[in-house]
């Protein structure tokens, strides 16, 4: 097992507020790693820094051997890193099927091709079937329910067959049955070789699905380990209860 993602001394401040403070951790290839921590611990900011949505003040991020903290989302996509958002960002004015097809990306030249080719249809159909979204394939993303949107977003970041997927609170606001569905999908894709880094608040989900668990507090890594160890780590308890 090798390190797929390594974050070293990452720092980001917003004025007087230091959101991420010399944060370091790494993610093993083939794992489903969780990133947890109390509110305000900097989890989403770390995600934004890793995925090129925010520039860091200092520190480095390495992915599959190359340094990426200065790269933007487009480059990261090509390198095999995709992410979802807390707010389930999907393209509201495109249909579910189109959302998936457009997520295949490509060169400018490739975009001169048919809007939805037979190959596109096939590949999208695979994901649509798997995520049970086939019956809404022609609805606009804006017409979906919250849970369906989260599934769609999740499906779309898998279209490019990435190596590492960052999920930002995939279970937030989602009903328990759907949470189970997501867990199943994550596991099956993980078995097929996709590494996951998941920011989560739902502890039972983390316990069931993720290993290892990285704990952040006030922008710093305070603990790493398997779920049971972390759960009983006094520093972690302190962080959650102490605030």
């Amino acid at each position, binding site marked *: 097992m090798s390190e797929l993602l390594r974050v070293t001394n990452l720092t980001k401040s917003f*004025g007087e*507020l230091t959101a991420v403070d010399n944060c370091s951790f790494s993610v093993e290839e083939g794992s489903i790693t969780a990133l947890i921590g109390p509110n305000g611990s900097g989890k989403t900011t770390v995600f934004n820094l890793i995925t090129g949505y925010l520039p860091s003040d200092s520190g480095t991020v390495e992915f599959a051997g190359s340094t990426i903290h200065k790269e933007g989302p487009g480059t990261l996509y090509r390198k095999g890193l995709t992410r979802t958002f807390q707010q389930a960002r999907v393209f509201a004015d495109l249909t579910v099927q189109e959302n998936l097809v457009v997520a295949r990306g490509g060169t400018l030249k490739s975009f001169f091709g048919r809007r939805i080719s037979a190959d596109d249809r096939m590949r999208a159909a695979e994901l649509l079937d798997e995520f049970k979204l086939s019956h809404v394939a022609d609805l606009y993303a804006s017409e979906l329910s919250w849970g369906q949107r989260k599934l769609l977003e999740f499906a779309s970041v898998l279209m490019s067959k990435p190596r590492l997927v960052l999920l930002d609170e995939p279970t937030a606001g989602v009903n328990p049955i759907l949470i189970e569905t997501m867990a199943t999908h994550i596991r099956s894709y993980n078995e097929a070789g996709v590494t996951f880094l998941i920011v989560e608040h739902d502890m039972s989900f983390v316990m069931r699905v993720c290993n290892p668990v990285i704990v952040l507090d006030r922008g710093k890594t305070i603990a790493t380990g398997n779920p049971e160890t972390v759960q009983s780590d006094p520093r972690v308890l302190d962080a959650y209860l102490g605030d």
Partner: protein
Amino acid sequence: MHTLIQGVILGVLTGGVYALMASGQTLIFGVMKVVNLAQGAFVIASAYLAFSLFTNYGIDPLFAVLITTPVMFGIGVLGHWIFLRPLRREDAVELSILVTFALALLIEGILSVTYHTTYRSINTSYANKAFDIGGFAISAVRVYGFVVSCVLLLLLYIVLQKTRFGRAIRATVQNPQSATLLGVDSNRVKAYGFGLGIATAAASGSIFGLLFPFNSGSHYDLISRLLSVVVLGGLGSIGGAVLAGVIIGVVSSVAAVTWSPTWSEMTFFIVLLLVLLVRPQGMFGRVERGNL
């Protein structure tokens, strides 16, 4: 050399006025993430107002500021409430630009119907007076205009730093979500922030009317300059806008005396292009991606 220094002095004096106008614009952007394309139009409207007050009642434009500013503040808040607040969330930013653009044109249209398109200027008694400082001839209006601009900028600074309202604005500019969590009513902040931005336009309108001849179409020229200033300073940074105003004032003034007056108008655009080429976020702007 003499002309060069004269140009620099002139540039600083004029730059102060641009700084005042631009500060309101960048404040509006900071609070609402909207580029107010009507800023120039409000300045011109206020200039006309000062002109009327002067021609009909003899009120000196610099004193008229006391009248025009509160009036425009109110108009700004009202305008925000009518035109900007109702916009749907998803395309609010995209549409806001067009709405403020349409507002600018509406104002231009109303002004040209009311005042016709002849160029006006406010000719006070001291309009042609000039001071002789160290061998440099400096027109009195520029000095007065600069002084008033500085006073108003100072006032703005005090409002933003020392009042609760100002702190709420700064919190919203820094981080809208946190600000809401801290109990700031974002709708009111946006409305009053917009009003405050328009108020600075009002105040600078009087000065503008003193310094330059204007007509209803002048807002195009003005908004182009203001936008260059704001981009150079960094969208959302008031300090940046002030500094950028002075810098661009000096650059264009020096260009006017060393090169030619007509081409000095281009300096604004050239600065804009250079900023976008070299450092798109301006001097003090934040580099941000993703949804703001």
